[in-house]
């Protein structure tokens, strides 16, 4: 009986620690989820035109921040290629702090899953998007709002459980 309180405290503490262990501190929830995507205006990767947020409204899509120097981007790349082959998934790439030549070489070598690619050389748009590492993938609804942010490479499991339902397509 006299050990009741200490035991209860230990159980509570262990509960907190158990939850804490399962949380990934590298995944910082974005305050942008639920808000309209930030305004931006960036050159396309081939330099031929400008891509802005207004042009991307009107249909659900994925916005994928990636770079040729980014090792984890290769991890999700096969999945991105699979998704790109589908007619109901649109992926817009934003090339982050990269050079045009390196980015184009990377795409030529590994394949291009993106319908459109904008280039964010300085990472200035990335700041507005709250990007702090690549890859990061945003799910955008038809109204142009951010409904989910995938931090780090997207796994098949992430796609099936988190991303596809929010994008409104079958996994």
């Amino acid at each position, binding site marked *: 009986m006299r050990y009741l309180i200490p035991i209860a405290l230990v159980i509570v503490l262990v509960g907190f620690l158990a939850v804490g262990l399962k949380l990934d501190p590298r995944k910082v929830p974005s*305050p942008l989820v639920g808000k309209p995507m930030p305004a931006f205006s960036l050159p396309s990767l081939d330099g031929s035109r400008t891509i802005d947020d207004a042009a991307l409204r009107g249909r659900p899509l994925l916005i994928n921040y990636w770079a040729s120097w980014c090792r984890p981007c290769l991890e999700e790349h096969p999945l991105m290629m699979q998704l790109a082959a589908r007619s109901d998934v649109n992926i817009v790439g934003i090339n982050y702090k990269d050079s045009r030549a390196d980015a184009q070489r990377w795409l030529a070598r590994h394949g291009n899953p993106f319908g459109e690619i904008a280039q964010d050389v300085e990472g200035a748009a990335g700041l507005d998007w709250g990007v702090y590492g690549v890859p990061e993938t945003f799910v955008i609804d038809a109204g142009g709002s951010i409904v989910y942010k995938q931090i780090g490479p997207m796994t098949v499991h992430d796609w099936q459980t988190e991303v596809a339902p929010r994008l409104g397509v079958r996994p």
Partner: protein
Amino acid sequence: MTRMGLSAAMIAGLWMGAMTSAWALEPEQQARYQSLVHQLRCLVCQNQSIAESNADLANDLREQVRTQIEAGRSDQEILDYMSDRYGDFVLYKPPLERKTIVLWVGPFLILLLAAFIAWRSGRRTAKSEPSAPDQERLRRLLERENP
């Protein structure tokens, strides 16, 4: 230029690049800059402020703080700019709101609880004087040892 001279110049250039962000400001702005970059947490190396971190992003954020100070933004506006994009996580001192109430009040609750437990167990020890049969036994034991 010799190779050594060239690399010395390059190192000096890098060093100056790292320093410029602090040099361009007035003393009063400089103080605000220092205070702000120590209040903001780096998202890449998470246990460092953006003042301490060498991460690329920390550098961008320091630059952002500097340009916003130059543009005449207030400290609160700059902190809001950061937390609008990166969440309360970037603030070493998060605001007091419903989500963070446990963070702010929790330690005091635990302290109160600990004080209560200490007080209760203190009272219990104070009460536990030896009882009458114990006294009797104690006396006999003492007598046996020192007759």
